[in-house]
């Protein structure tokens, strides 16, 4: 299905959700309000015509003005894809989980939490995944300072 048709369907069902639509990008994306993320995700998976059955990846991006979480979703059934983005404040990034829509989100959200400090509300088991549990800070943030030592070992 065409990208514009998917956008129209989201607009029709959840009118306030969309902030920005970029059709000119190599992979066209939709920027949505964080508080509507879960509803949009449910719509994209549940709506027969769209049928996004697969969440490919969740990536955090640290911009100077915001932490952006990017969702790459895909439909095997209909062979089309979509990129969703949400902008979160840098000092307190919080967004609803989509783990209840796609199970794949479980580990991807844990990774984004681990490396960017984004809190996914409603996630069943939000803890660090790649780094040790007692690690301080979120390394993929642009202002991250490397710790000089870890448990007495010089890094």
């Amino acid at each position, binding site marked *: 299905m065409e990208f514009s048709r998917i956008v129209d369907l989201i607009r029709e069902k959840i009118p306030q959700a969309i902030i920005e639509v970029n059709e000119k*990008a*190599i*992979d066209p994306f939709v920027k949505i309000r964080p508080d509507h993320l879960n509803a949009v995700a449910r719509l994209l998976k549940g709506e027969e015509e769209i049928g996004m*059955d*697969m*969440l*490919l*990846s969740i*990536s955090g*991006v*640290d911009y100077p003005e915001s932490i952006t979480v*990017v969702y*790459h979703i895909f439909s*095997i059934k209909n*062979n089309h894809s979509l*990129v969703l983005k949400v902008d979160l404040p840098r000092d307190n990034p919080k967004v609803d989980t989509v783990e209840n829509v*796609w*199970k*794949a989100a*479980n*580990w991807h959200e844990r990774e984004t939490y681990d*490396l960017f400090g984004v809190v996914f509300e409603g996630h069943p088991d939000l803890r*660090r*995944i*790649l*780094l*040790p549990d007692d690690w301080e800070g979120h*390394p*993929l943030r642009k202002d991250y300072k490397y710790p000089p030592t870890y448990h007495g070992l010089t890094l």
Partner: protein
Amino acid sequence: MKGRDWKEYDELNVNMGPQHPSTHGVLRLLLKTDGEIVKEAIPHIGYLHRSIEKIAEKISYTQFIPYTDRLDYLAAMNNNLAYTLTVEKLMGIEVPERAQYIRVIMAELNRIASHLVAIGTFGLDLGVVTPFFYAFREREYILDLFEMCCGARLTYNYMRIGGVANDLPPGFMDRLKDFLDYFVPRVEEYNQLMSFNKIFIERTAGIGVLPADVAKNYGVTGPNLRGSGVKWDLRKNLPYCIYPRFEFNIPVGTGMVGKVGDSWDRYWVRVQEMLESVKIIRQAMEQIPGGDIRAKLPRLIKPPVGEVFFRAENPRGELGFYIISDGSPSPYRLKIRAPSFCNLSVFEEISRDWMIADLVAILGSLDIVLGEIDR
């Protein structure tokens, strides 16, 4: 012990790994066991974390290619290919015909080599030792071919943005043909030794069934998804490179000896995929033209401002790269969507209530590489 009923004993927590021969790397599984039955198996990952995504933000686009070798180190050519294709998609680069064919030959050879390791170690996990040596013997031929091209046997660093590093060396095509002629009858040997061996079937058929909807829900891709009966292969369904020019089939799991999506199906898909790869290489050998092997590009690669997501069909599933460029010589953000990462996340779901020995079969059939899970 006197006077205590066996039911009074609590569940026992067992750490399987991080140093364990059948976890295929440094993976720790926390098992909650009730006797031999596994009530819960929680994977703990991150032991191999090298912060490759953070490193990418400090180095140039070309310098990152050797780092991709170290993701899925059993399929370095495929990683190279997926990464270079992503940058090329971002910059809109046309790759010369000859380079396209060389890339496909390398990617498919590496797919065979990777599946050979997968099959061999899967057998080893279950106690079939001989096929492991056979598989590594065949893989050795492929590694020799790679060594001819780029001098390396594991981390190739062979692809370049816009093409490949070197042209095929003299005598390569003859040796490749010899290998393919030698290899195809060997698959029959594996089938006799392993695939249709009664003990092997008993250990794998009906074990760790992964239904198609669960697989999609967890983002499982590659042979594991196809083992569940989903006919989905990026080379066919969302073609890249020159794959539409070749004729090949997509093997899927049919539940031939057990249920659709069991460990045997995942194994069997890999065996058949090796033969499909041979078909592709044979066609590519016939069609390959002469000409340039690299597009003309500036030394320092500076993609335009923008972002791109691209995925390619690796031996273990769909490897995706998400690159954000701010116009500078190094990426603003580079995210790696590793197939094994998603494939392992489903493990907790499908390993419940199996025996510990079956767990080894299920994990082996998922064929994970920790290098790309931890990055």
